[in-house]
């Protein structure tokens, strides 16, 4: 799968640098992923700055006048800022969750627990089945004599 590009430039140029060039800076997909991650985290940093200095006191009465714990919330804001914005908006509009606060995802938890109970032995089994314990000493086979 990786060799497709290599076949094209391989014949003309025998330099390793050319043959592996596509991979030196990482693949295009990798670059896109890293850029997306960086954009997401920078957006999170902006949300964190805004929420922790201004928004938090508006929507969380217990946070008013309490500053020491706010730095602890920075990583969380940066990582889940879309959820922060969603809850911030709901609380600003006075839509508290009411009884919904008391409906834990109990069924989902049991199902995920059962899925884990099934999946873990399967993964362990796969790991043991694919293990290569040999061949440790296989003599080479001569296919064509020296010219």
């Amino acid at each position, binding site marked *: 799968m990786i060799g497709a590009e*290599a076949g094209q430039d*391989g014949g003309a140029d025998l*330099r*390793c640098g050319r*043959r592996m060039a596509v991979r030196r800076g990482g693949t295009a997909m990798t670059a896109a992923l890293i850029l997306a991650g960086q954009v997401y985290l920078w957006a999170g940093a902006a949300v964190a700055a805004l929420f922790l200095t201004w928004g938090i006191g508006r929507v969380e009465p217990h946070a008013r006048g309490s500053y020491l714990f706010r730095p602890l919330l920075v990583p969380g804001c940066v990582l889940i800022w879309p959820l922060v914005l969603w809850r911030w908006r709901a609380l600003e509009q006075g839509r508290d969750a009411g009884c919904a606060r008391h409906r834990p995802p109990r069924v989902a938890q049991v199902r995920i627990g059962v899925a884990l109970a099934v999946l873990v032995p399967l993964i362990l089994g796969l790991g043991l089945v694919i293990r290569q314990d040999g061949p440790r000493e296989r*003599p*080479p086979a001569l*296919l064509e004599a020296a010219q």
Partner: protein
Amino acid sequence: MAAKEPPFFIGWGKMPAALRDFTIGIGLGLVVLLALAGFMVAATQNDPGDGAVLGGAAAVGVLEAAPYPVLHVTDSESFAAGTALLLSGVGKRGVEDRAGSLDGKLVAVKGVRLARGEIEGVQVSPGADGMVEADGAAARPVAADLGRWRITGEICDGKCLNGAMRPGTGLAHKACANLCLIGGAPPVFVATGRVDGAEFFLLGNADGGPVTQEVLDHTAVLVEAEGRVERRGGIHVFLIDPASVRLAR
């Protein structure tokens, strides 16, 4: 009924004595179990082999640039004449760019010696004196064709295998090995049997150049590969056909 039930635990309150003893017992038991697990995992690690970084070294010899730069030693205090040195750069890099113009010439190399079993290598110093043309002339060793072979073994990066990392083989090291190969470090085929007395082979492509990217999908596991084997002075070269590489069963 109340007597049979465990005492009620409130985190901010005083813990009932029976529950406290049970909890402390579990906690201390976990500490002991963790210590035992740590010891067992550490004490049962695989032997990483004898590859090692052996300090500074210098050599003069004939440089052969393809498939990867190799120095055939003619004169050195560290190596016997005739030894073939796999050359690599600092970090996960090769020295192809520096070696290209010196192909077939007598070259003086300075750097750090890497060795494992019967393979020797030098991590070439980054400075200007790391690799320079030397006075004099010498002929490159004549390549002896040993035929076309199917060999079982592992494709490693010759730098880590040679002692730059210990262990420098295996699946946990696969991505690192690929990174070395992408950077231009010489790949080495570690065979499960010998051809012409050799079990380590410098790997190249069937066209005589460096390996192609397909090889990256086959590193760090036991594979079968087909290709011509050549003896070039003190080293054996395995010029594989990438399409022939498959998982060894």
